[in-house]
């Protein structure tokens, strides 16, 4: 029987975590994502599935608890919002360097600094370009509905373990707080120790029974060896880029102008497409679902048919850099964004699109 509920994005994600067979959640309260830990504490998943939920003393501690549990081979996760993610970056870099699978959720708010508790997408660079120190990548999933908040938990864990790499769900305060209908996934049993070894190998620190000891570390003082480790990481990232690009196209087939937008920005842009088409403007929407790896091939392909692109983001213009790199000069790329927790309306975006199209046509005439 279908399990359909009306839920907040944060709650749907928390329920999905229990159902995904997560072993542990470590978190620290911060608006607008506190419902994740509140929901988990109320649900008592230790009785439902044996999942551990712990409120840490800080985001630093929480991400390092994730490091410990992930290093022990378990499905561990944490969630926070922008300022808290900044605190976690040290740990995230260690997790990436040590090749530990885990899930990190960022329900973004406006920055910089303490910023605001209203939604924003200003952590794009931080999420997709590394964020912490060193050459590393997170696999970044961008949900645009409450349904995807739920669906991406299980997907995120699967990808994390497939590549032994941290995965981030980059959401925002709007998706986290809004209520929508959500089809909840079936309960997946938590893996036993034997199943973990069978499925993912025996690299984790579980006590060296019947095998040589395992070590989880990101340190190597020998530069020759450490470069090899870095090359290995880069090869892994290349494989992820080749295999894990996800996106959605909305009315792109006949479009001569393309909006690129993710998360909340994509929800608004979908309305822009609808309004624009009513006026006879053939707008299409390309929604990256994975922000890293970025769907650059499809964007480059769309550049053969589109006269222009607009990156619609709730920030000062971050993803636009990746759109430009994908378009490779085939068409002009502009940006429309609001900052500081302001959410653009479809009509103001459409106005910007119309203005941009007029500009492009004027330039083409010259």
């Amino acid at each position: 029987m279908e399990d359909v509920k009306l839920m907040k994005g944060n709650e749907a994600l928390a329920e999905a975590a229990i159902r995904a067979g997560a072993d542990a959640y470590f978190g620290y309260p911060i608006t607008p994502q506190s419902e994740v830990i509140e929901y988990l504490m109320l649900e008592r998943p230790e009785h439902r599935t044996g999942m551990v939920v712990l409120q840490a003393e800080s985001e630093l501690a929480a991400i390092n608890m994730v490091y410990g549990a992930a290093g022990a081979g378990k499905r561990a996760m944490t969630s926070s919002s922008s300022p808290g993610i900044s605190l976690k970056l040290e740990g995230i870099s260690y997790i990436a360097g040590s090749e530990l699978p885990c899930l990190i959720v960022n329900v973004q708010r406006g920055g910089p600094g303490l910023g605001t508790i209203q939604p924003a997408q200003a952590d794009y660079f931080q999420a997709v370009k590394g964020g912490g120190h060193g050459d590393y990548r997170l696999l970044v999933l961008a949900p645009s509905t409450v349904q995807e908040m739920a669906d991406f938990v299980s997907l995120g864990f699967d990808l994390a373990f497939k590549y032994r790499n941290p995965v981030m769900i980059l959401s925002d305060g709007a998706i986290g707080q809004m209520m929508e209908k959500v089809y909840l996934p079936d309960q997946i049993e938590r893996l036993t120790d034997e199943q973990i070894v069978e499925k993912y190998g025996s690299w984790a620190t579980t006590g060296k029974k019947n095998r040589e000891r395992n070590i989880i570390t990101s340190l190597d003082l020998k530069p020759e060896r450490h470069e090899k480790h870095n090359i290995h990481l880069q090869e892994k990232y290349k494989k992820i880029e080749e295999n894990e690009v996800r996106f959605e196209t909305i009315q792109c087939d006949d479009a001569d102008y393309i909006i690129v937008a993710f998360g909340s920005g994509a929800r608004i842009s979908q309305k822009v497409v609808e309004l624009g088409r009513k006026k006879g403007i053939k707008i299409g929407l390309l929604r990256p679902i994975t922000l890293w790896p970025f769907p650059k091939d499809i964007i480059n392909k769309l550049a053969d048919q589109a006269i222009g692109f607009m990156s619609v983001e709730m920030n000062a213009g971050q993803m636009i850099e990746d759109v430009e790199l994908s378009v490779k000069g085939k068409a002009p790329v502009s940006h429309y964004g609001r900052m500081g927790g302001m959410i653009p309306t479809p009509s103001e975006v459409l106005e910007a699109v119309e203005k941009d199209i007029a500009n492009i046509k004027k330039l083409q005439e010259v």
Partner: protein
Amino acid sequence: MTTSVITPEEIIKKGTVVFKKTELMTNNTLSYCPGCGHGVAHRLVMEVIEEMGIGEETIGVAPVGCSVLAYDFMNVDMQQAAHGRAPAVATGIKRVYPEKYVFTYQGDGDLAAIGTSETIHACNRGENIVIIFINNGIYGMTGGQMAPTTLAGMKSSTSPYGRSIPTMGYPIKMTELVAHLPGVAYATRQAVHEAKYVRKAKKAIQKAFENQRDLKGTSIVEIVSNCNSGWKMTPVDANKWLEENMLPYFPLGDIKK
């Protein structure tokens, strides 16, 4: 493990094994300076784990500092933690594997400065883990900078005129501090610079691991140690200095049991 009494005649007899390195220490050459207490402290921890027969169910956490490479020497499953975060990492491991043995091995900079919060809160939750705390009053790995435990007036590369209390604060007594927390089952201060101290330290480490076995909560074993390189002394002078200066401020013995 029982040790049978060996007569002096047997000891000098060729081929008699009077001491054996525990299998839980690897054959890698220790990276510590000659005279450093880390080697003895490592051995004691691993001997206790071997004697309790828990080597296959133990996970250790190495810090940042001189013992960052502890996993090169400790022959059990190990995780290397970010600076100061070992108690949080240990919490993560212990919470998903409550039936296994988890310990951290940390220096004073790691545990008492950058990791103060993680230490206090792991202790306050009564995480059922063992914390081995090596206190040598200095940052050894980075080259002899002032530690939170550097004594008043003591010179280091970042207190070249001696630690000034009015501007640099007091050397912190972390073990006394966490002993106040109800989550802490056992807090003790030991030393390893002489045989008589080594024997006591081993007993303390054993008690700490037995506490974990018996689900008693956090056990912290501080070991006041030396750093002849950082202190810029010969190993012999360093041990003498430790006895005369460190021990009066950091007195040995159980603080909570």
